[in-house]
């Protein structure tokens, strides 16, 4: 055993590189090659050879020898390290340095401490530090208080607390105000401050703007091209800012403008009262147009980065237009800077809106809507000032001229999902102004109401007739003029109780308007805008089915289907009751008879029998199916010959059948295979949540289970431990939680796997508000993943998946643990956890939302578009400033205008 051990020891030694190794003999060290002494023991201590040299101690000092034992570096050091990467640390007279193999110093031994850093070494002597930059083999003298590295720059803090900035080992900027830090770099542009002045350095190219500016703003423009490149931004270089004595004037800024490649647009220094604004196209600001004055001349910078003379002052934005003053007049200036009409004054429209205060009270407040295209314009008429409404979109006056703006009030309502302005003149008559259309009705309506979503009803004050307007995105159509209008709404409520909250699903909601003409005849407009002109003696909701209205004319009964607008004209002595059978077709029974009268479609056409008579037949202990025709009862035919061990009828004229191989499947009465015969058992599970005639069946293969339906066959095959049906969206959308190997996943009713079976648990997040989507939370360990789903006709549409930095999710809100309780943190919404406002309990500040993504904060608009990139470690809203967010980046606090992206430090703010 022992011999084999030595053999193994020998085996393990073979193949090792032949190297001198130090050994101790008595009190001295030498070197040997295996057992052969190569260097006689003579050293107080010896270290292994590295890079051809060995560190040894002799007479109390350290030096380096080669493999012949010769001194390559004399033993003069109090302490030293072995060579690594061509260098070794040495301590000479108590000072540390770095020596090379030829004895030359990379770092002279004059440092008390040396620390490894990401750029090389930090060298400390006394209270000062320097650096050795390994990449450049450059030494930074130890005369600084601290050193940091960011990107390619090494910032060294001087004793006067200014900073020397090194680039590739060489000072390129002295006495900078601060070290280079995160946030200073924008791609290859780095911001520096010297003597309080700001400059921008373009890496490898030099100064884009030397540090001589009070501030440098980057502003967005349309795309434009310079000699070298194409840009969508320019720079405003602020030389100085002065506050005017007249506080109304604010500050005057002296600046120059430059293109994206740093070229000045003009040598002239412009002084202007800053008035930055943007033309807005869609939801995105696309450029800034600045007004400037210099030596009493007015200029403007266009989106194409051209400076143009411009005579108008006091530029301000109204909707997609700019207003500018010249002389006594205010001009409406188009996007191409062309002045259009001019008026004595132009004032935005003020609407009255209801607000709910923090205490739940309702308050009416005037609100100026900057994004509405209606404004007041004024002109002089003789000695009076008169006012009218002006449509900026149409660039024209759209009302009469009135002596006071109070003579005309403007209200807004929403119809057809669009805004309609109601303008009421001094005589209390209404006109309609659709957001995208011209005036569509004159001032002749005493009242205007919006009884149904897509309709307006106005009563003509002269004729007492009522006009009905159908309102859509691009049209308002007058449907009818009648004597009276009634509106009605039918509801069928399905109560759905979950989690102690009672949520009512207005699943079958039908709206319609009843019309009455001067003769008392009644008509109907359905919500699908199908018009039945007044012709009926009476209308009555059908008791059996709220989708129908029973009509009566001259004693005869008919039926109108609200969904489709189809009708059975009044022709029956007995009212109809509509029913749906298992095959989803409508048939009608005349009230009181209790028997099927006949099949009619909604247009009153009689149909062939749609209700086959199905019989199970047997022969030789096997079962089959025969059917017949209701109208020709004598005619029977076999659809399935007797070949099954069992046939169990289920919904939809289908059967669970057991084949001769004792396997189960599902077939139709016509013999079509809906579920193949692969299963050891099939049992009824549940009806579909929304459509009771759809049924789900569990299919088993041994212990494994899957799910199938009578209408679509196999949804998930039998390969799961369990399958459980849940409501996917809260709107009766069937989904399934699938369990496999102790892990859970989510699938929809069409067989699509929405969430893989990898979660410890899956549960639906109960949203406390009506949405078109649902959310599921999957947990793995302590981590939460949220999957958003929405429903369409073919299945579920998978939306975003994300990981939440939350301790708990309840409903639509996420919570974090704070002490003894959970604190509401934000709204769980797709990719973001939108931070709650400190102003109130909403998740927004009215203008934007704060959102958290991948560990950083940013801002988003209501559509989820990113306004401010996710770069902030923390963020809050700013009180009383609805367009500003406060962000913290690397410990620096910034005030950020979320729509223009300008940001200011505390000092600058």
């Amino acid at each position, binding site marked *: *055993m*022992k011999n084999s*051990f030595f053999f*193994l*020891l020998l085996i*393990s*030694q073979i193949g*090792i590189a032949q190297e001198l*190794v130090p050994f101790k003999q008595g009190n001295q060290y030498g070197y040997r090659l295996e057992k052969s002494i190569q260097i006689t023991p003579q050293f107080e*201590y010896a*270290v*292994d050879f590295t890079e051809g040299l060995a*560190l040894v*101690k002799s007479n109390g000092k*350290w030096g380096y020898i080669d493999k012949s034992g010769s001194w390559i570096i004399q033993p003069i050091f109090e*302490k*030293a*390290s*072995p060579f*690594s990467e061509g260098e070794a*640390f*040495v*301590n000479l007279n108590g000072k*540390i340095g770095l020596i090379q193999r030829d004895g030359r110093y990379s770092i002279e031994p004059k440092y008390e*401490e*040396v*620390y*490894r*850093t990401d750029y090389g*070494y*930090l060298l400390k002597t006394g209270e000062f530090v320097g650096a050795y930059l390994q990449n450049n083999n450059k030494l930074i003298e130890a005369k600084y208080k601290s050193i940091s590295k960011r990107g390619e720059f090494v910032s060294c803090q001087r004793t006067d607390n200014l900073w020397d900035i090194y680039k590739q080992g060489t000072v390129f900027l002295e006495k900078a105000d601060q070290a280079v830090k995160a946030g200073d770099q924008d791609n290859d542009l780095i911001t520096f401050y010297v003597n309080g002045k700001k400059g921008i350095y373009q890496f490898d190219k030099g100064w884009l703007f030397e540090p001589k500016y009070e501030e440098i703003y980057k502003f967005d423009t349309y795309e434009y091209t310079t000699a070298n490149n194409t840009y969508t931004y320019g720079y405003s270089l602020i030389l100085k800012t002065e506050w005017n004595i007249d506080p109304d004037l604010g500050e005057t800024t002296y600046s120059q403008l430059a293109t994206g490649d740093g070229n000045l647009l003009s040598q002239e220094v412009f002084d202007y009262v800053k008035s930055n604004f943007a033309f807005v196209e869609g939801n995105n600001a696309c450029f800034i147009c600045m007004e400037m004055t210099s030596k009493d001349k007015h200029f403007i910078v266009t989106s194409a980065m051209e400076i143009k003379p411009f005579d108008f002052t006091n530029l301000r934005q109204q909707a997609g237009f700019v207003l500018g003053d010249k002389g006594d007049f205010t001009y409406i200036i188009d996007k191409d800077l062309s002045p259009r009409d001019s008026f004595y004054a132009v004032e935005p429209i003020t609407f009255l809106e209801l607000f709910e205060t923090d205490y739940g009270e309702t308050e009416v407040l005037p609100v100026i809507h900057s994004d509405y295209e209606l404004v007041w314009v004024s002109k002089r008429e003789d000695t009076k000032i008169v006012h009218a409404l002006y449509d900026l979109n149409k660039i024209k006056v759209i009302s009469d001229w009135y002596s006071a703006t109070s003579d005309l009030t403007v209200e807004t309502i929403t119809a057809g999902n669009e805004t309609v302005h109601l303008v009421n003149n001094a005589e209390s008559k209404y006109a309609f102004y659709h957001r995208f259309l011209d005036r569509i009705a004159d001032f002749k309506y005493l009242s205007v109401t919006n009884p149904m979503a897509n309709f307006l009803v106005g009563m003509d004050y002269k004729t007492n007739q009522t006009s009905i307007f159908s309102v859509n995105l691009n049209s308002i159509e007058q449907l009818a003029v009648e004597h009276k209008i009634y509106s009605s709404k039918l509801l069928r409520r399905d109560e759905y109780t979950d989690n102690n909250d009672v949520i009512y699903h207005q699943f079958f909601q039908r709206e319609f308007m009843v019309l009455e003409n001067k003769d008392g005849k009644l008509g109907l407009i359905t919500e699908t805008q199908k018009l039945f002109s007044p012709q009926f003696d009476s209308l009555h909701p059908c008791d059996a089915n709220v989708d129908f209205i029973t009509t009566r004319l001259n004693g005869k009964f008919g039926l109108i289907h609200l969904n489709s607008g189809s009708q059975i004209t009044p022709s029956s002595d007995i009212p109809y009751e509509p029913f749906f059978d298992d095959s989803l077709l409508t048939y009608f029974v005349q009230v009181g008879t209790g028997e099927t009268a006949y099949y009619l479609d909604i247009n009153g056409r009689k149909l062939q029998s749609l209700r086959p008579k199905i019989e199970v037949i047997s022969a030789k202990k096997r079962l089959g199916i025969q059917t017949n025709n209701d109208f020709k009862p004598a005619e029977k035919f076999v659809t399935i010959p007797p070949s099954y061990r069992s046939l169990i009828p289920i919904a939809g004229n289908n059967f669970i059948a057991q084949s001769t191989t004792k396997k189960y499947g599902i077939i139709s009465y016509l013999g079509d295979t809906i579920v193949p015969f692969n299963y050891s058992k099939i049992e009824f599970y549940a009806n579909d949540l929304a459509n009771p005639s759809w049924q789900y069946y569990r299919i088993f293969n041994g212990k494994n289970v899957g799910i199938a339906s009578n209408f679509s066959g196999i949804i998930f095959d039998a390969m799961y*431990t369990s399958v459980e049906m849940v409501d996917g969206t809260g709107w009766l959308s069937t989904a399934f939680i699938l369990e496999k*190997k*102790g892990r859970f996943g989510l699938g929809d009713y069409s067989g699509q796997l929405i969430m893989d079976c*990898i979660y*410890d*648990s899956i*549960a639906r997040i109960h949203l406390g508000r009506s949405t078109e989507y649902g959310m599921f939370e999957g*947990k*793995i*360990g*302590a*981590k939460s993943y949220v999957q958003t789903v929405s429903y369409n006709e073919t299945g579920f549409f998978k939306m975003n998946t994300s990981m939440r930095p939350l*301790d*708990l999710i309840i409903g639509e809100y996420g919570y974090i*643990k*704070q*002490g*003894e309780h959970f604190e509401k943190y934000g709204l769980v919404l797709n990719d973001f956890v939108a931070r709650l406002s400190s102003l109130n309990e909403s998740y927004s500040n009215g203008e934007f939302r704060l959102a958290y993504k991948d560990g950083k904060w940013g801002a988003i608009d209501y559509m989820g578009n990113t306004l401010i990139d996710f770069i902030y470690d923390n963020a809050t809203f700013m009180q009383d400033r609805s367009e500003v967010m406060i962000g913290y980046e690397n410990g620096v606090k910034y005030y950020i205008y979320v729509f223009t992206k300008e940001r200011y430090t505390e000092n600058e703010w």
Partner: protein
Amino acid sequence: MTSLWSLSQTSFESTFPLKWKTQVGVTTYRTNLLFHGGLLYIGSNGQSRESRFDAQDGVYAIHPKTGAIVHHFQIPFGGDNDVTGIAIGDEKLFFGTDNYYFFCFDLKTKTELWKYHLPYDVESKPVVADFNGDQKMDVAFTVQSNGIYALDGTTGALIWNNNTISCHEGNAAPRLFDINKDGVMDILFAGRGEANSDEINGFKMAHYGDYHIAVDGKTGGYLWAVATGAGVHTAPFIATKNGKTEIYALDCYGELNVISPEGKVLKKANFDYGMFSSPVVSNDGHLIIGNTFAEIGPKAFSKENDSLPLYLNEEALVNVIRNKGKTSATSVLADVLGKGFPQVIGITESGEIFIAKTDGTLLAYYFVAKSGYEASQFASNSHGKSQAHLVHTNGILTGSETSLFVADIDADGNLEIVIADLNGFLYCFDTKSAGKVEFGGF
């Protein structure tokens, strides 16, 4: 939900008075304390892990009653001489450094006996056993980015070296167990080799090439390897009960494999990410991973199919003490409260100390760092249900990555709690308990 507020209004020091403190330098979650021959031993990364001539590097021998440094074992030459884990056998001190060396010192004479040059750092503690049959203790250890070594404890000569797999970052400390029952201790450790899959599993690769490995103590040859989903920074725990042994091996993404001595995966479970605390199995059948507690009795694992291991099922209660700070230190099991049963004692990097039952029920909670903070605990089983609450106090420490050390080190009949703090000091706190220690230190 039980509130422990009233129980834990007192500070840590009023319950466990400070006996002494002494400066030893920087320590990590891979640092271990040993109590041998009446002295405490601990390895140190010195004043700074980055310093190249750090006078505080080395191993400290400390008097348990006074905290006085009895001896400072130092490396005679310069460089990055940070020391992390240590082992003692045959009155010899064994340890590796970040300077590519492994050392052996004589505890009595305090002199260096031998050193062995390595291709890279030694980041975890070594293990000692007789591997070559000479009736003397030898030493085995892992080397970062390289293999596993076994050296003769007396001469420092190489017994064997298996370099066919990388020990990756070398953070996973090896353990000893006679797997092949040949009378020689074999070594369990972790390494990284070829990935066995290029599939993606969720947000990560299904396999990066990490394995829990057992090698023959005699030859260094493979006995078995079990794939795991991520890098391993923990030491396995070998639990033997009723004659049956199970090896609990954990990777840093929380994948737990319970392996038989023959290398068969018996059970699996998944815990939270960022696992640097080594698993500990209590005698009463609980698994403790830092601040995570799991029931692992017979009913806790379910069988899926014949060919697959058991999985931790949803009935198994998993508790997590959700501290503010990260728990990297391996928790220990000892009766420091004198209650007659062992408690789990853990510490976080932010200075929270928790004392709990083995099922995670919080008994006491202290904040021993300087700035005030309220922490919380809540338990969550697979259904995500929680119970919560917390305590607060001020203290003098910073926090720790290093596992606490509990033993009666000063022979006063009561246990002491020794804490290697991130501020570079070693603290010794007294208990009033003469209770037993089930697992006293990493």
